[in-house]
């Protein structure tokens, strides 16, 4: 061995050194490091699991949101449809009421016109009577001569019949 240049003592010392190093490395470095690595791996796994759970929950929430939107839209459409129907019915009722009121107003107006027409006619006739009598009075005042008046008196006395006597 010595002829190969290998010292046994050095070799044994190296082997012991290596063994010690190995022992120390295994006990104080490798194990904690391996624990650390496994811990990290576990953490990674947990993270991935949490991520996938979150993703799943997110998908579920989106699905439920979509479902809610769809149902809300359906309800809204129904409400709009019902409102349109109600408005149409109300419109028909209003139009009918307005028509009825208009007819009543027209009828009242016609009656009022008739009444006013009759009143005007009566007033006109009364005025004609007044004017005629005024004209006759004027004629009496102006055109009845004394002779004519004497004749009138004679005529009145002739035609007057009474039981006063």
């Amino acid at each position, binding site marked *: 061995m010595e002829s190969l240049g290998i010292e046994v003592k050095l070799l044994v010392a190296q082997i012991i050194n290596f063994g010690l190093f190995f022992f120390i490395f295994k006990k104080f470095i490798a194990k904690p490091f391996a624990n650390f690595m496994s811990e990290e791996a576990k953490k990674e796994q947990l993270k991935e699991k949490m991520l996938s759970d979150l993703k799943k929950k997110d998908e579920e929430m989106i699905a439920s949101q979509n479902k809610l939107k769809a149902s809300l839209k359906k309800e809204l459409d129904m409400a709009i449809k019902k409102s349109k129907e109600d408005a149409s019915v109300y419109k028909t009722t209003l139009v009918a009421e307005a028509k009825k009121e208009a007819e009543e107003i027209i009828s009242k107006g016609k009656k009022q016109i008739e009444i006013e027409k009759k009143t005007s006619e009566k007033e006109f006739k009364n005025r004609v*009577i007044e004017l*005629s*009598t005024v004209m006759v009075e004027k004629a*009496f005042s102006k055109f*009845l001569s*004394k002779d004519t008046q004497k004749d009138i*008196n004679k005529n009145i*006395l002739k035609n007057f019949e*009474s039981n006063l*006597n």
Partner: protein
Amino acid sequence: MKAEIISNYKLSESEIQEITKKFKFLKDYDVINTIDTAIYGGMIIKYQGKVIDLSLSSRLKNFKKTLYEIA
């Protein structure tokens, strides 16, 4: 007792006599002739609170009343 004959003009004696002849009760009355041009013609005889209206104005009034009733 007094009686009043209202006429449109002054009545002559003969006319008053004619009236008295027609209304014989006037013989018992002292007849006075009053002039009122508003009667237009004819006469109104007033005696003892009574009135005999033979004037043209009253006839015109009655005619007017009839016209109002007809109209």
